[in-house]
């Protein structure tokens, strides 16, 4: 199988994720889009590792998974708290920290 196909799939997934982050207002959706971008990156790492036959890409992929898991824990907690206080999950409304 051509390794380029994996990279193209990763690029498509990353683009979809970035698009989601930029255009959606719901915090949960934005969050999922971030996960999609992370996993696109993971896919690229793993494909590269397979292609070169080294372990480096696999190690980085594991790190990304761990960080993503930690991030989900903290991020979801924040989103839930914001939702409880403001009765809304829109990230545009949570724009109090500004000039």
């Amino acid at each position, binding site marked *: 199988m051509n390794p380029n196909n994996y990279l193209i799939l990763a690029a498509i997934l990353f683009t979809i994720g970035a698009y989601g*982050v*930029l*255009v959606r*207002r719901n915090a949960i959706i934005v969050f999922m889009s971030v996960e999609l971008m992370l996993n696109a990156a993971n896919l690229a790492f793993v494909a590269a590792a397979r292609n070169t036959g080294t372990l480096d890409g696999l190690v980085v992929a594991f790190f990304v998974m761990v960080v993503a898991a930690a991030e989900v824990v903290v991020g979801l907690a924040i989103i839930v708290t914001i939702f409880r206080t403001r009765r809304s999950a829109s*990230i*545009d409304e*949570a*724009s109090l920290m*500004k*000039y």
Partner: protein
Amino acid sequence: MIAALIGLPLLGATVLLLGGRRTNAWGHFLAVAMSAASFVLGLFLFIQMAGKSEEEREVGQHLFDWISVGSFQVPFGLHLDQLSIVFVLLITGVGTLIHVYSIGYMEHDPNRRKFFAYLNLFVAAMLLLVLADNYFLLYVGWEGVGLASYLLISFYQQKPTAAAAGKKAFIVNRVGDVGLSLAIMLMFVTFGTVTFEGVDAAVASGSSSTVTWIGLALLLAACGKSAQFPLQSWLLDAMEGPTPVSALIHAATMVTAGVYLIVRAHSIFDLSEAARTAVVIVGAITLLLGAFIGLAKDDIKKGLAGSTMSQIGYMVLAAGLGPVGYVFAIFHLLTHGMFKAGLFLGAGSVMHGMHDDVNMRHYGALRTMMKVTYVTFGLGFLAIIGVPPFAGFWSKDEIIYVAFSQSFIIGMATLLGAGVTAFYMTRMMAMTFFGEARWQDDVHPHESPAVMTIPMIVLAFGSVFGGVAMLFVGDIEHWLEPVTGYAKPENSVSHSVLIPITIAVVLAGALFAWMRYGRRPVPVVAPTDVRFLTRAARADAYGDSLNEAVFMRPGQYLTRSLTWFDSKAIDGLVSGLAASIGGLSARGRRLQNGYARSYALTMLGGAVLIALVLLLVRL
């Protein structure tokens, strides 16, 4: 011993200034006691000195090394020689008398303690000035007397004119002080030392132009302190101070410090003909200018102040004539110290009896009301116009004689000055003590208390016998010769010719004044339809207007334009820079808009940019 001379009055001033109101009751007695103790000590040192042979008379006292930096060595040393001791006696003697007089004169003043503290401070500073053994320490005393003078001129600080007069004296003196500091710096650079002894020894090694510059800088200093042309304007305003201050500081002692400086630095002036000529010219101009101002003054104290300027002009002129004149400059200084202090105290006594009115047009016929004042003032008057055998005759006649030996024009100037002196002093006598009474309503002239008249009587004795005593008993030429040097003038005109001429000029001046002011009634209000010369003399020969036009107004324009430049250009630049950075930041702040998605877009843009750059570099 020498240090105690300065220490005693300094102690008095310290106690009175730090003691505060607690010393109000006895403060003036302490001040008098300190000054008198200093005088007794000075008298003791004088007798001790007179008993020694000529070579051993000079004594020094090294207190400590004051400044010691590399080759710059300034000792804190005192030095008592034949010149300083006569000054010590004049300062403490006249000073003590004026302290006593002030007890009466300042009796009703709530700030009498402060007044006496300042007087003691002045005596201490003046003694430091004449006892210092180097120019640097002399400078300390020089500034000390300037400070005391400032404090005492503006003593009636509630009067705006007095406050302004004090500031004026201080500022004009600053101009002279620049001269003294320049002279000291030049001495150090040229000779490597600032002690009198060191400079005297090294002066021959300096180039003649340097020595001349030092001499001119010293002359500038003397002009400031001694109210000589062109720095004379402060002295007339200084009469705003209490009369004892005018007598002690602005007649007898401080204003003569310039003469002391020139005589003390005689080794410099001996070598520089040009500097000496400048001194003589300054002296001659001031001698005539002061007399001219004295002619038209109706304020008794300002008339005396003009006369002081004129008499110090005589001294400066004599000092500028070189070794033939130094001793007579000092001789006239000493006699002038006595009779002019006496005249000022007399004027104070008259003012005391006339409700502090200084306008002579409101006096008249006081000789019957104030007998002691009349007699003592009259003796001082005879002394100042130079009637033999009173003190002023001997000293002024010597100066006229020496002046004729050097130059006919200078001699004529001194002779003319003597005639004008006789005129304005006779005018003063006639307007104050003779003629009809022109007293204001509810003024009841009365004689002053004994505490004031006794110092006047003592000074009157000095005015009568001082000259004879110093010239014939004290032999002042030979007493001062080891310090100042003395050369007998070679004169084409002999004393026997000059003395009758001088007396004739004096009598003519006095007679002329008597015809105008003694025989004719004096108008109570000064006439205004007067000639230009009278108007000029009333306006202090336009000295103030000149200073205003030449220095003050351009100075104000300069400061105003500098302020404008500072506030517009400099501040504009600095504040403009700050404002533009501030404005830029205020706009940059808008980027922090709180929308997470816009941050994400920025991040994405940045990442894409970096990726593009990396790609481009790789290609």
